[in-house]
């Protein structure tokens, strides 16, 4: 891209330039006047050199005449130009160099005056933006559209003397901004701290002076004090939050040793923890707490606590607030002792209860339905928001041509501080640069047809292996679950009850085992395939793992909702929701136990083995993608289970807390950073997207299906006796309508909007349209970026042209001065 400006008139570009829309005579004449003015201003003693000036102008115009006339002596011109083409030779005059080095684009961050100037302009823009938007017509037309509309005067490059006044004007601007804007501006300025605090002091002093000068009414003085107090509170709240940072020291240690890649796993874990915390707070406050305070009357045959409950979740736990079955289906009243159970009072006749203290009533079924729905809704919003934010940070619209430049400048990971890790990282970057240079220098070697076929075959084989193993495992799970289902149907009473409970753990154990072993097989297949580009390999691995987990979860959902829920009587279940909730608890727990085992065997023992037996010096690598997918799988289970087990988020929180410490110690002891380059932002975006789309969407589809179509059990839970869980909301609306006929509109709206599937289609249609518009906007931005790049190139050309002309003029001055001196010396 480094092009020299070519003044060869026969060159097509120059001809094209001369055929520009503006009349060339006009352009050149006005320009020559400008140069004439410039050289005139430069001369301090005007009298003696007046003739010289005229001579100069003539010569200047003469030279320019060479340009304007077409039928001129090309050779002479070229000779002249070659002599003084500053881009060919290195003979920049000192003035030109000074001009170049003091240009704003070169002095950002270096010259204090330039920074103050730049921030003066920014504060001006901010003030204007906050106050009113000036119309673009107010600004003078300029050939440079880049400065039009920015409020910049044409002569914004001030001489040093004007620096002080610029500073005063900046202080003035700062004073007129709001406090938060001012603080933001101050913090973002690349000046030294001493200067910033000087600016701040002068701003505050000025403010105090103007305030004490004028007569302020006491209410705005009060407002001022309130603002100061609020700011102090805000700072102390920030301090508190910062000190509360969870795991800050641990994360710093991990990132210091392994870099941002491994850190992203732990940050993802922290994000999941916050999601679960939110879920737990919502369900805990609105479901668990009211029900715990008003315990229902329990049936007599309550099992005693044995240790197995912690594993199976059944037994003693089945009749606790942990599961769906415990929750009442009537309105809870405060200070009301309903001794005869009241379990048979359904919602529609709720008011027949003898307690009339209805101002503290709590409609449990409605609450259950709405709280679960609201929790999912808000989780969806938070997920989509964080996904779009992460996407915005990592998605780059234009294709990156400058890979090498990026690698040189941007591959250093500043978080790493441990010596060995730093050495490893610099080796890694060195290797990458060498590879890139080799690629750049070498010609691309095309594979022969034979080689291409061979590669295709290898890829096909690997994919066939993966798909076959996945299908085999899924099929196996399907039949095993069927087998277990039938086993429970037979209900052999001579079986030991403990054994019966333990056999419930068989399916979760199998599924977790499959989840553990199959990714190893996928890794083997990938090793066989030997991808050239490591990022493609990572994506393929993630795709295969995802395929496995999605199919496993689909089969399990079918088993629970299609088999168990459809016909609960066949396995002597009075409360199928309890059973499903317990199943999910068991799955979550088994997942955790198998992760523990994997950490122990996969990382700890493998390191031992490879060091002592295989005598390898390198420790095993921490597979970030696989671990994150395991976290996503666990979170999907938690989301599936919230409807049946409102306390499942608490279990998940405990699990994540323990997992953090276990994984951290394992990583520090046994692993080393991944050797492949890991693009953190992109991977984080992918993981959040995976969390949102297959994981959360799948869970919410399951839950919605359960609420909409599946019949709840008749003898337990808050929705007993209703046809579907959704009926709870409908009944409430009907009751409202009955109590207050004016709200029939609401009932009708509810009937049309929520029950009608058309509403969902319309909603989905609007969503798709919005996505389409956004993609068009992105396309447009891409076009604008390429146009702007062209413009930058053109402006670079302009700059070179101007500098060349200045150089030329300076040369003229110098030679004429020399001539004058030689003439003088001759006399």
């Amino acid at each position, binding site marked *: 891209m480094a092009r020299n400006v070519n003044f060869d008139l026969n060159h097509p570009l120059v001809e094209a330039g001369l055929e520009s829309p503006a009349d060339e005579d006009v352009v050149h004449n006005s320009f020559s006047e400008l140069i004439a003015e410039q050289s005139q201003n430069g001369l301090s003693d005007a009298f003696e050199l007046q003739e010289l000036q005229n001579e100069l102008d003539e010569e200047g115009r003469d030279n320019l005449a060479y340009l304007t006339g077409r039928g001129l002596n090309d050779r002479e011109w070229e000779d002249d130009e070659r002599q003084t083409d500053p881009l060919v030779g290195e003979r920049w005059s000192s003035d030109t160099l000074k001009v170049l080095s003091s240009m704003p684009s070169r002095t950002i961050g270096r010259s204090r005056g330039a920074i103050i100037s730049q921030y003066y302009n920014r504060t001006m823009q901010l003030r204007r933006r906050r106050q009113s938007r000036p119309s673009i017509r107010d600004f003078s037309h300029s050939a440079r559209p880049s400065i039009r509309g920015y409020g910049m005067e044409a002569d914004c490059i001030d001489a040093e003397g004007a620096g002080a006044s610029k500073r005063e004007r900046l202080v003035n601007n700062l004073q007129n901004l709001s406090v938060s804007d001012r603080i933001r501006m101050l*913090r973002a300025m690349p000046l030294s701290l001493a200067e910033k605090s000087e600016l701040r002091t002068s701003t505050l002093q000025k403010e105090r002076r103007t305030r004490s000068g004028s007569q302020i009414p006491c209410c705005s003085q009060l407002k001022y004090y309130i603002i100061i107090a609020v700011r102090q509170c805000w700072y102390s709240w920030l301090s508190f939050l910062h000190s509360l940072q969870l795991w800050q020291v641990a994360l710093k240690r991990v990132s210091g040793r392994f870099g941002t890649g491994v850190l992203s796993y732990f940050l993802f874990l922290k994000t999941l923890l916050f999601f679960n915390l939110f879920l737990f707070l919502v369900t805990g406050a609105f479901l668990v707490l009211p029900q715990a305070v008003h315990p229902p009357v329990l049936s007599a045959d309550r099992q005693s606590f044995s240790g197995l409950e912690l594993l199976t979740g059944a037994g003693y736990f089945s009749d606790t607030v942990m599961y769906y079955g415990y929750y009442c289906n009537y309105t809870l009243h405060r200070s009301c002792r309903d001794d005869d159970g009241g379990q048979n009072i359904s919602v529609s006749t709720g008011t027949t209860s003898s307690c009339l203290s209805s101002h503290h009533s709590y409609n449990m079924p409605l609450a259950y339905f709405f709280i679960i729905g609201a929790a999912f809704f808000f989780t969806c919003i938070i997920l989509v928001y964080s996904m779009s934010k992460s996407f915005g940070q990592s998605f780059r619209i234009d294709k990156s041509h400058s890979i090498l430049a990026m690698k040189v400048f941007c591959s250093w990971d500043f978080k790493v501080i441990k010596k060995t890790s730093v050495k490893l990282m610099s080796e890694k970057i060195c290797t990458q640069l060498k590879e890139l240079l080799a690629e750049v220098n070498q010609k691309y070697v095309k594979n022969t047809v034979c080689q291409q076929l061979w590669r295709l075959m290898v890829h096909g084989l690997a994919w066939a292996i993966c798909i076959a193993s996945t299908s085999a495992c899924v099929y196996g799970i399907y039949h095993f679950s069927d087998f277990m289902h039938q086993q429970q149907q037979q209900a052999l009473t001579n079986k030991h009850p403990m054994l019966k409970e333990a056999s419930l753990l068989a399916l979760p154990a199998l599924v977790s085992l499959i989840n553990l072993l199959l990714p190893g097989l996928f890794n083997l297949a990938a090793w066989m395939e030997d991808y050239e580009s490591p990022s493609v390999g990572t994506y393929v691995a993630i795709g295969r793992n995802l395929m496995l987990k999605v199919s496993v979860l689909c089969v399990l959902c079918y088993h629970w909702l299609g088999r168990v829920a459809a016909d609960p009587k066949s396995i002597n279940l009075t409360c199928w929701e309890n059973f499903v909730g317990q199943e999910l608890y068991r799955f979550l727990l088994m997942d955790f136990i198998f992760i523990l085992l994997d950490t122990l065997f996969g990382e700890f023992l493998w390191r031992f083995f490879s060091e002592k037996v295989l005598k390898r010096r390198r420790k095993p690598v921490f597979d970030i993608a696989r671990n994150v997918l395991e976290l996503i799988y666990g979170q999907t289970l938690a989301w599936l289970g919230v409807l049946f087990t409102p306390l499942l988020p608490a279990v998940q929180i405990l699990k994540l807390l323990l997992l953090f410490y276990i994984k951290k110690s394992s990583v520090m002891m046994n692993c080393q950073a991944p050797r492949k380059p890991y693009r953190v932002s992109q991977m984080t975006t992918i993981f959040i997207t995976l969390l949102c789309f297959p994981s959360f969407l799948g869970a919410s589809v399951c839950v919605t299906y359960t609420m909409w179509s599946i019949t709840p059990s008749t003898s337990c839970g808050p929705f007993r006796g209703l046809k579907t869980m959704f009926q709870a909301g409908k009944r409430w609306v009907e009751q409202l309508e009955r109590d207050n006929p004016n709200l029939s509109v609401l009932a009708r709206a509810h009937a049309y909007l929520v029950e009608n599937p058309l509403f969902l289609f319309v909603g989905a249609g609007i969503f798709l349209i919005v996505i389409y518009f956004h993609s068009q906007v992105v396309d447009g931005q891409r076009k604008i970026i390429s146009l702007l790049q062209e413009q930058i190139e053109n402006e670079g050309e302009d700059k070179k042209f101007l500098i060349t002309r200045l150089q030329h003029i300076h040369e003229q001055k110098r030679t004429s001065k020399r001539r004058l001196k030689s003439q003088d010396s001759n006399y």
Partner: protein
Amino acid sequence: MGNKQTIFTDEQLDAYQDCTFFTRKEILRLHGRYHELAPHLVPMDYTNEPDCKLPLALIVNMPELKENPFRNRIVESFSEDGMGNLSFNEFVDMFSVLSEMAPRELKAIYAFKIYGNEELTPEEVELVCEKTIEEADLDGDNKLSFADFENMISRAPDFLR
């Protein structure tokens, strides 16, 4: 707030809070770190703004900077005299810019300063430089200005995290 600290006046702390990305506690902690680099040089009382500078060699030994190959350049670009001697203000400034809360644009300006004046000699490295400038230079003047640099690192979202 009832803090019994006597190191800074309240006004000084307010000024620090407004001009950097740190909270009160963090500034006091930073002063602790600065003090422990040279306990006999650094006074505990900063209310009358003593003029105390620590040399490059001491600062560069901090565990956060020790293994960083750019450590000398980093400290030099924040020092006023260009030799790496940092007063407490410059020390706080450096950590404020390097902290996670500083915006990318600010970090980019300093990163440009740090990278900008490298003198590199070996041949392979020269080739890399040539190709780099070729790729990254947008307005074709054979130099990398700050705008070129900013454009390039905007494409690398992992940088300067």
